[in-house]
């Protein structure tokens, strides 16, 4: 969370980043960190309940949803691109709130988080929320190389420093770009909303299988792999023990699952408010 909070400041435009308010003091950072932990505990609350309980706002409120995404992404994935995404969402929410109004916003958030109804909803959510430790983080090659090199050179302490260093370096913009807006990392430029992946231009991928409904699309193995890889970008695994596969949340608010059946091949189940509710992509 410290890295996400640091990254959120770095993700702001240069003009804002240099302001006094953007230099979050230790107390503000500590409060923000504690609140983000609490918000992430509420990950199993539905969005409307989350927005209402924690912020007194509507489900479509960008601040509430931005902070929800930031807190959950930071908690559920150890991947650098996920942490960077969490930092971007946190930065966006803080900008919308206004850095000068952030302390008052945090005051209000703390009061709301401690209300009996919020605590009850939190307790219910905590009972089923996937713990970060239950998900094995996936680190890209550069982290592994950094860790390995440090391991050779400096033992355990070096390993830890290298791992943190790689993550922080990837979260923060390069110093040479400090005067301008932080450059958009390559992984962000590649991100495509789910609807653009499975229905580019409003036309669903693949073809209708047999005499099924239009929502059930079949594609070739090569197309399927491409679609799957695009959807997995910046996707965060979500625990759904009664789902016959692995379920993921995406930053655009959509979700999808991948199921593999020995008998029926691989299927992606898509849940996106911009698509029909029962959208499926099946590999031929």
């Amino acid at each position: 969370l410290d890295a996400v909070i640091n990254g959120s400041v770095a993700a702001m435009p240069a003009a804002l980043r240099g302001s006094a308010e953007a230099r979050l003091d230790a107390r503000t950072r500590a409060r923000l960190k504690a609140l983000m932990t609490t918000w992430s505990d509420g990950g199993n609350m539905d969005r409307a309940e989350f927005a209402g309980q924690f912020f007194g706002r509507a489900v479509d409120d960008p601040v509430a949803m931005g902070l929800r995404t930031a807190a959950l992404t930071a908690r559920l994935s150890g991947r650098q691109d996920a942490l960077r995404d969490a930092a971007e969402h946190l930065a966006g929410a803080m900008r919308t709130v206004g850095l000068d109004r952030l302390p008052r916003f945090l005051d209000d958030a703390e009061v709301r988080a401690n209300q009996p109804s919020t605590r009850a909803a939190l307790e219910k959510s905590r009972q089923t929320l996937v713990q970060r430790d239950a998900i094995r983080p996936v680190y890209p090659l550069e982290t592994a190389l950094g860790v390995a090199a440090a391991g050779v050179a400096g033992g355990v302490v070096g390993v830890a420093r290298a791992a943190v260093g790689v993550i922080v370096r990837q979260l923060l913009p390069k110093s040479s770009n400090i005067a301008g807006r932080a450059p958009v990392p390559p992984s962000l430029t590649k991100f495509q909303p789910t609807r653009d992946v499975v229905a580019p231009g409003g036309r669903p991928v693949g073809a209708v299988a047999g005499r099924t409904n239009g929502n059930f699309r079949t594609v070739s193995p090569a197309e399927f792999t491409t679609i799957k890889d695009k959807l997995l970008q910046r996707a965060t695994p979500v625990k759904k023990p009664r789902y016959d596969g692995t379920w993921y949340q995406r930053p655009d608010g959509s979700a999808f699952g991948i199921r593999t059946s020995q008998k029926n091949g691989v299927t992606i189940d898509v849940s996106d408010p911009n698509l029909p509710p029962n959208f499926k992509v099946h590999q031929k």
Partner: protein
Amino acid sequence: MSSQPVHSFFGTPLDEWIECTPNELEFDAIGLWQIIPDLRKSFGLSGDALEHATREVLTKILDRGAHPIVGSFDKPGTWERVTKYGENSIDIVNAIVAEWCTIDRNPDVEDVWFGLPRFYDAD
């Protein structure tokens, strides 16, 4: 001219949608999360119309030999049969309609699906 609702995304008339939905069993299990939310959102159904359409499509799915199933908690990646809704189609449809059509929440992918025996036997 028919005045029946059409699918907001695909333009499929409701009768045709109901008729074609069970065909998916040839390829995959069908989740209740696919049925009720689509009837609500894509066809704009609610109340008696929602209940009627849900009954129709579930009956057709069960008539194809499908059974209620859910992802196995003990063996991830496999299905297990659900027996709490009863054994015959009428009881199953009544129980599911009673459970789901009268509440605001839509079924989720963790809720009941329908699959042929080969789905949960093969896996």
